């Protein structure tokens, strides 16, 4: 560190305006501010015939410090963000359905930033290898909104500032050098997507003129291409020298993924499917999807005309279809009417015999299959006697 005394000496040694001097002093450790005028004048002492002569100043060589435009966009996630079908972005009381980033200003002065997002196309590559996120089935989110935190991050701790809320601004205003600010992409999830779909998004930032109005950022900074020693030029020092930085993150869609299997077994005491014997069908519904339950399940089953539906197989002869949801008690319903007149969710139509099984549990609720759960449905048919 330079001493205080040296900084006082600066007043004499540098020709710059008082305002520029103050700005330069604040930012000295982090890079001289754009616009600071750096002058250099040499002084020459000499003697002629042993007599000291008047000190001669040189001409002054000057340059104005230019704006080094450098910044980064960094995602805060460490894995794809799970989302469920139809989920909406919320910030209160419980935040959800968003991707977090922060933008860091590595320039030598304040910068504004214009922010955009891009819905990534299929095959944009793995976001988080290994695992889901290869994005072969990339989908788009709805209603994507960019929101910027109300305050910059504490120095040296990027990503720890206040959470960006839905009411916050969509651009960055006057981000000081070497500081960062959080940016969030809020999005709503479409109602119809498949399990393990990935919705990849990129946050794209471009530095803008920080001297513009407070209410809005200025236009993106440009490199003039006509450099000038005496004025502030923009020198793009970001990756690619193009005043464009971005990072990607994504949502991992978890939707119910049902597999249905049907098996038949001969009801004791018989061991072979002979006329007069009964066969029990077992339908297994397995939800191998993510976090979501499959609700209001309805099963249609066409029964072979050669068999007859057994009307009183379960529940002490009062029900003909049984559900096992893994609960303590099984649920029953009766497919004994054509239009489900008893309102238990199950009905039967004849010629051909078709079962509609959309049963209710004991509480009268529809049968749901939670994520990772299995629900089984059983009913019996009889092989008519010859």
């Amino acid at each position, binding site marked *: *560190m*330079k001493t205080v*005394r*040296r*900084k006082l*000496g*600066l007043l004499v*040694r*540098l020709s710059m305006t008082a305002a520029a001097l103050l700005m*330069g002093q604040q930012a*000295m*450790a982090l*890079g*001289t501010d754009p616009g*600071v005028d*750096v*002058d*250099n*004048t*040499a*002084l*020459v*002492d*000499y*003697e*002629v*015939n*042993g007599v000291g*002569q*008047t000190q*001669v*100043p*040189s*001409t*002054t*060589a*000057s*340059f*104005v*410090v*230019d*704006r*080094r435009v450098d910044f980064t966009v960094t995602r805060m996630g460490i894995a794809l963000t799970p989302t469920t079908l139809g989920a909406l972005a919320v910030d209160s009381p419980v935040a959800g359905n968003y991707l977090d980033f922060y933008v860091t200003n590595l320039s*030598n002065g304040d910068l504004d930033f214009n922010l955009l997002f891009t819905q990534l196309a299929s095959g944009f590559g793995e976001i988080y290898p290994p695992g889901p996120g290869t994005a072969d089935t990339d989908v788009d989110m709805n209603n994507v909104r960019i929101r910027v935190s109300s305050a910059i991050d504490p120095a040296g701790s990027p990503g720890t500032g206040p959470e960006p809320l839905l009411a916050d601004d969509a651009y960055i205003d006057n981000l000081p050098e070497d500081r960062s600010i959080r940016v969030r992409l809020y999005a709503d999830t479409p109602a119809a997507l498949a399990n393990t779909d990935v919705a990849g998004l990129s946050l794209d930032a471009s530095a803008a003129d920080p001297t513009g109005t407070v209410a809005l950022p200025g236009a993106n900074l440009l490199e003039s291409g006509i*450099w*000038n*020693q005496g004025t502030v*030029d923009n*020198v793009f*020092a970001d990756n690619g020298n193009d005043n464009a930085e971005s990072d990607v993150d994504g949502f991992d869609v978890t939707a119910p993924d049902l597999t249905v299997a049907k098996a038949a077994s001969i009801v004791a005491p018989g061991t072979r499917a002979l006329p007069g014997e009964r066969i029990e069908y077992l339908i297994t519904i397995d939800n191998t999807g993510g976090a979501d339950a499959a609700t209001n399940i309805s099963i249609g089953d066409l029964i072979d005309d050669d068999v007859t539906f057994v009307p009183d197989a379960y529940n002490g002869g009062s029900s003909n279809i049984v559900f096992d949801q893994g609960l303590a008690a099984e649920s029953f319903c009766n497919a004994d009417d054509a239009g489900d007149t008893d309102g238990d969710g199950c009905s039967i139509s004849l010629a051909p015999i078709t079962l509609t099984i959309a049963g209710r549990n004991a509480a009268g609720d529809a049968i749901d299959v939670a994520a990772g759960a299995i629900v089984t449905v059983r009913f019996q048919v009889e092989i008519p006697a010859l």
Partner: protein
Amino acid sequence: MSAFTEKLLARAMAFAALFVLFASDIALAQGKGHLEVTTIVQKEILVENEDGDSEKQLVVAETVIPGERVVYTIVFENVGDAAAENVVITNPISESLTYVAGSASNDSMKVEFSVDDGKTFGLASELRMVDNGIERPATTNDYTHVRWVMQNELEVGAKGSASFAAVLQ
């Protein structure tokens, strides 16, 4: 043109010439002395040469951003009519700049530095700083001034130059 007008014009021109001479005398006495000194600033960049090696090159300092290196060159000439003795060129180093070690070396001049705003000077190896009561060798970051002490006289009409490099903070 009448003879009278011609005479008047000649007088006026003589007066004007006299005035010009007088004015330049004032300038010489007040500002220039017997030495003329100019300073230029250039930017030092690394460019790849044909062999693929990087090579230093000086270019016009059109754009300078923190971290870049500038080179100041001070050119001095004895435009007087007597030899200049004990020529000392003192150059303050801007607070925004950090001197690049070794860059001021000069064959015909002794190079010294100051770490106390030009009050005292010494060789790079001799300078000390005191931080919180603890003495330590000075670093290039501490330098406030660089100066060149000419070992020989600067003869009439002779030219010399000195330069140093610095990094913009």
